C-alpha cells in the first residue's frame, strides 16, 4: 500500500466527517450558537474600542458609578464604574479561550497517554493505567485553587494549562479502551502485514476510528475547564486580573448589584447557559452520529 | 377459504421507509399454509423472507410498516386486530422462533423465568404448574432440568436454540413460525432441531412455517415450500415438485447450486447480484439474471399461476404462451 493511498484515505474520512456535520440538527444548532459566541467574543475588543475608546471595560471608572443602562452602557456600570456590557463581551472571549485551550491541552495529553497505553500494552500500559487511575481519584483542582489564591498574577495561558493538566485522566481512559479494542481488529493486522510501521498505523488506521471519542473528550474537557474556572471564580478563587465570565458573575451577584439591578445577572446567566448548551448540543450530536442507534429518539 | 388452511396470506406488502423512498421489501405476497404441514419459505438473503414472517406475526418495527394486504389466521385477519387481541393470539395460537436465538434470551434472567413468563401472562396457570410444563418441554428436546436455573450465557448455541423451541411449543400453539432456526448451528444440533420440528408435526399436529436460505434444509423436512425472490413469491409447490421439477429459472438455479455427495455435478451459481429493494427491476424481477429472458419479461410482471396441480409459478415461460 503506498503512502499516497494512506493520505487520500484521511482526506476521504475528513470529507465524510464534514458531510455528517451538515445533517445532524443538534450539531448544526450547537455549532452555530457556539461559533456565534466565539466570533462575538473575539471581535469584542474591537467593539469595545468603538464604544469606550482606549479604556478597557473592566478598568475602574471607565464610566460613572452606578450608571443606568443606556445606549452607551447597555447594562450600566457597577459601583466601581466598570462597564458591565463590555465586560460581558470580553468575558466571553476569556472564558471561551480558557475552555478551548484547556481542552486542547487535556486532549493532547489524553491522546498521547491513551494511545501509548492502549497500543503498547504490557508493563507500559500497567504503569500508565495505575498512574491515570490514581490521578482520577485525587482531585487536582485544589492545587489549582491554591496556586490561584497565592499567586497574584496568573496569565490566561497558565490557567488554561493548569486546568487542562487536571482534567485529562477521564478522556485518557476512554481513548485507551478504544485503542485497546481496535488494536485486535482485522484491519490493523492487515496494515501490519502491509509493513506499515507503528506510527503509520496509529495515524492512518487507528486515529480515524478513535476520532469521535477524541472530539467528545475535547468538548468535555473544555466544558469542564469553563465550569471549573467560572465556578471557582464565583466564590473568589482564581487569578484576580482575568476578566472572565466567572468574575463578572461574582460582581453581579454582589449584594449591591443584586438589589439595584437584579436583571443584570440574567444577562450573564444567559450567556453562560448558551455556552454550555451549545457545547452540549455538539457533544450529543457527535454521539448520535457515531452511535446511530441513538437517533431513534423521537422528537429531537 | 379452503378446508384445512390454517394461514392464508393475501397480497401482503411490507415496506421500509428510507430517505431514498420506500424499500418494498415484501411486495404483494400471496400463499396458503395447510394444517399440519411443514411449509418452507426459501430464497437468498435479502429477498424478504424474514420481513415476511415479521409481517405475518405483526412484529414489524419502524422504519418498516405494513403497507397492505391480509393475513388470515384461522379465518381472522391479523392485520385488523388490536395490539391486545394480537397479544392474546401470540404464543397460545401462534408462536415465533426468531432468527439468531443466540441473542434472543435476556442475559440477566434465568432460563426458567424466560420460559414461563409467556405461559404466566397468557393463562391462569400457577407458577409451579408452569415450571412443570417448562421442564417437560425441555426434556422433550433432550435438555436436562438443570438448564432451567442457568443463565443464557452458560448455554451453548444449540442449547439456546432448543430452549427457544421448547418455549415456543410450551403452550401447544397451532402454528409455529421459525425464522432461520438452524442457520448458526453445527450439523449435529441442526439435525436435532429439525428432528424436533418434525416431531412437533407428527406427534402433536402442529403446523410449522420454516424460513431458511439453505435449500438442503428445505429438502430435508418441508412438505411444501414457497420460493421468494426480490420481495415476491415466484414458485410454490410440494417439496418433491420443487426439487424434482423446478419450474422457475431461479428455483432451478437454487437447486443446481446445492452440492451433492451422490452425484458429481458442476455447481453453478446464479450470475449477477441480488437487486436492491429500493429499485426493483421492471417487469419480472429476475429478468436481468435469467438465461431465458425475453422481451415480455422486461415489460410485464408475471402472475403466480397454478401450472400443475398444487404447483404455482410466476414466469412467462409457462401458462398461456
Amino acid at each position, binding site marked *: 500500500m503506498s503512502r499516497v493511498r494512506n493520505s487520500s484515505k484521511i482526506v476521504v474520512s475528513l470529507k465524510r466527517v464534514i458531510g455528517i456535520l451538515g445533517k445532524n440538527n443538534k450539531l448544526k444548532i450547537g455549532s452555530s450558537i457556539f461559533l456565534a459566541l466565539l466570533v462575538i467574543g473575539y471581535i469584542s475588543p474591537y467593539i469595545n474600542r468603538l464604544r469606550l475608546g482606549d479604556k478597557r471595560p473592566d478598568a475602574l471608572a471607565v464610566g460613572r458609578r452606578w450608571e443606568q443602562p443606556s445606549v452607551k452602557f447597555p447594562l450600566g456600570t457597577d459601583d466601581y464604574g466598570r462597564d458591565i456590557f463590555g465586560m460581558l463581551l470580553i468575558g466571553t472571549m476569556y472564558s471561551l479561550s480558557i475552555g478551548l485551550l484547556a481542552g486542547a491541552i487535556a486532549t493532547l495529553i489524553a491522546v498521547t497517554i491513551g494511545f501509548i497505553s492502549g497500543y503498547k500494552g504490557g508493563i507500559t500500559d500497567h504503569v500508565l493505567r495505575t498512574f491515570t487511575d490514581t490521578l482520577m481519584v485525587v482531585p487536582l483542582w485544589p492545587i489549582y485553587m491554591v496556586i490561584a489564591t497565592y499567586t497574584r498574577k496568573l496569565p490566561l495561558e497558565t490557567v488554561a494549562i493548569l486546568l487542562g493538566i487536571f482534567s485529562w485522566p477521564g478522556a485518557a481512559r476512554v481513548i485507551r479502551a478504544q485503542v485497546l479494542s481496535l488494536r485486535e481488529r482485522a484491519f490493523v493486522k492487515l496494515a501490519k502485514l502491509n509493513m506499515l510501521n507503528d506510527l503509520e498505523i496509529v495515524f492512518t488506521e487507528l486515529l480515524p476510528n478513535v476520532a469521535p471519542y477524541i472530539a467528545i473528550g475535547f468538548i468535555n474537557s473544555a466544558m469542564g475547564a469553563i465550569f471549573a474556572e467560572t465556578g471557582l471564580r464565583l466564590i473568589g478563587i482564581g487569578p484576580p486580573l482575568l476578566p472572565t465570565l466567572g468574575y463578572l458573575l461574582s460582581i453581579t451577584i454582589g449584594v449591591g448589584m443584586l438589589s439595584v439591578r437584579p436583571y443584570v445577572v440574567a444577562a450573564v*446567566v444567559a450567556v*453562560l*447557559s448558551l455556552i454550555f448548551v451549545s457545547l452540549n*448540543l455538539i457533544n450529543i450530536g457527535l454521539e448520535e452520529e457515531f452511535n446511530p442507534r441513538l437517533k431513534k429518539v423521537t422528537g*429531537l | 377459504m379452503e378446508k384445512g388452511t390454517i394461514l392464508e396470506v393475501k397480497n401482503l406488502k411490507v415496506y421500509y421507509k428510507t430517505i431514498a423512498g420506500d424499500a418494498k421489501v415484501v411486495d404483494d405476497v400471496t400463499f396458503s399454509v395447510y394444517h399440519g404441514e411443514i411449509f418452507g419459505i426459501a430464497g437468498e438473503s435479502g429477498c424478504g423472507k424474514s420481513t415476511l414472517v415479521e409481517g405475518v406475526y405483526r412484529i414489524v418495527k419502524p422504519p418498516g410498516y405494513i403497507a397492505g394486504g391480509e393475513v388470515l389466521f384461522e379465518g381472522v385477519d391479523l392485520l385488523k386486530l388490536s395490539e391486545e387481541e394480537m397479544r392474546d393470539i401470540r*404464543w397460545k395460537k401462534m408462536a415465533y422462533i426468531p432468527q439468531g436465538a443466540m441473542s*434472543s434470551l*435476556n442475559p440477566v*434472567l434465568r432460563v426458567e423465568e424466560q420460559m414461563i413468563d409467556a405461559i404466566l401472562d397468557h393463562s391462569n396457570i400457577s407458577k409451579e404448574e408452569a415450571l412443570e410444563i417448562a421442564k417437560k418441554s425441555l426434556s422433550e428436546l433432550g435438555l436436562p432440568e438443570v438448564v432451567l436455573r442457568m443463565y443464557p450465557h452458560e448455554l451453548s448455541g444449540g442449547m439456546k436454540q432448543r430452549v427457544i423451541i421448547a418455549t415456543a411449543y410450551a403452550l401447544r400453539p397451532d402454528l409455529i413460525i421459525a425464522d432461520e432456526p438452524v442457520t448458526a448451528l453445527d450439523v449435529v444440533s441442526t439435525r436435532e432441531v429439525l428432528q424436533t420440528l418434525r416431531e412437533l408435526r407428527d406427534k402433536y399436529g402442529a403446523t410449522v412455517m420454516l424460513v431458511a436460505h439453505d435449500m438442503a434444509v428445505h429438502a430435508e423436512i418441508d412438505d411444501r415450500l414457497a420460493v421468494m425472490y426480490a420481495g415476491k413469491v415466484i414458485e410454490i409447490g410440494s417439496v418433491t415438485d420443487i426439487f424434482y421439477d423446478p419450474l422457475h429459472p431461479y428455483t432451478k438455479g437454487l437447486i443446481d447450486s446445492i452440492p451433492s455427495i451422490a452425484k458429481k455435478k458442476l455447481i453453478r451459481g446464479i450470475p449477477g447480484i441480488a437487486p436492491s429493494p429500493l429499485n426493483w427491476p421492471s417487469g419480472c424481477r429476475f429478468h436481468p439474471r435469467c438465461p431465458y429472458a425475453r422481451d415480455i419479461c422486461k415489460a410485464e410482471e408475471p402472475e403466480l399461476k397454478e401450472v400443475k396441480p398444487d404447483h404455482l409459478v410466476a414466469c412467462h415461460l409457462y401458462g398461456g404462451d
Partner: protein
Amino acid sequence: MKPLQKYLLKRVAAYIVTLYGAVTAVFFLFRLIPGNPIEAFIGQIMATQFTQAELARKLVEQYKAEFGLEGDLFTQYVNYMRQLLRGNFGVSLYGFPRSAQELIFQSLPWTIGLLGLSAVISWFFGVVLGALTAWKRESKVGAVLAGLAIVFSQIPYYIIAVTLVLVFSYMLGWLPATGAYDPSLSPGLNIQFILSVIKYGLLPALSLVLTQAFGWFLSTRYLTISLLGEDFLVYAEAKGIKQSRLFRRYVFRNILLPQTTGLGISLGFMIGGQIVLETIFAYPGMGYLFSRALGMLDYNLISGILILQSFVVLTANLILDLVYPLIDPRVKYHE
C-alpha cells in the same frame, strides 16, 4: 476457587497501592507549595498578643511540632503516615486547637445530608422517568423532557443556584439564601429545627437536583433506547408478554445495573463536598470547610479531607468491583 482468589488478591493489592499513592500524592502536593502557613498564623497571633521574638520563636517550634512540620520533608512524611494509621489527621489550623478529624466529622453530616439526598432523589427520578419515557417510544413527554435535559444537564449547578436565589430569595423572599438552618435555633432533634433545615436546604438541593436529575434522565434514556433494538426484546415481545412485565424484567433490569454502579461512584465522589455550592449558600459542609482550609493553607485539614475523599472513592470502587459480578450474571471474576 483458584481464579477467584487470584482476582481478589490482585484487586485488593491494586487498591492498597492506589490508596498509598493517593495519600502520598496529597502529602507532597501541598507541602511543595511555597509559603509557610505557621509563620503567617503565628504572625497573626503576634500582632495581637506577643511581641517578643524569643517567645515567638519558641511558639513557632512548638506549633511546628504540633502540626507535624518539624524536621525535613521525609521525617514529616514518616510521621504523617504513622499518624494516619491511627486515624489522626493532625491539629487543624483553621479550627485551632481542635483536631482536623473533629472538624471533618462535624461537617460531614451536612454534606452527606444535602448532597447524598439530592443525589439519590435525582437518580431515582431521572432513571425511572428516563426509562419509562424511552420505553413508550412515541412519548411526547419524553421528547420534551429530553430537550430540557439537554439544556439543564450541563448548565453548571451554580448558575442555576444563582438564578434560584435571585428569584426565590431576592425577588420573592420565600426562601433563605444562606445557611443550613435558622441561626436563632439551636440544633436538636425537634420539629422546628428539622423544618428549618429543610427550608434552608431547599434551594441548594434544588440546584443540584435539577442538573443531576436531568443528567440521569438523559443517560438512562440513551441506555434504554439502545436496548430497544436488542434481539431479546423483540423476542420477548413476540412471546406476547404483558407490557408491564416487559418493562420491568426486560428493560429496567438491564439498565439498572450500569446506572446503579454510576450512582455508587458519584456518591463516592461527593464526600469531598461541593465547594462552590456550599460557599454560595454558606452551607457548613465539607466543601465549605475545604475552602476555608485552603485559604489558610491548613495542611492537616486539607490533606485530611482529600485523603478521606480518596479513601471513600477507592473503597466504593473496590466494593462495586467485588459486588458487581454477584449482580450481573454475565460478568465473572477475571482480570
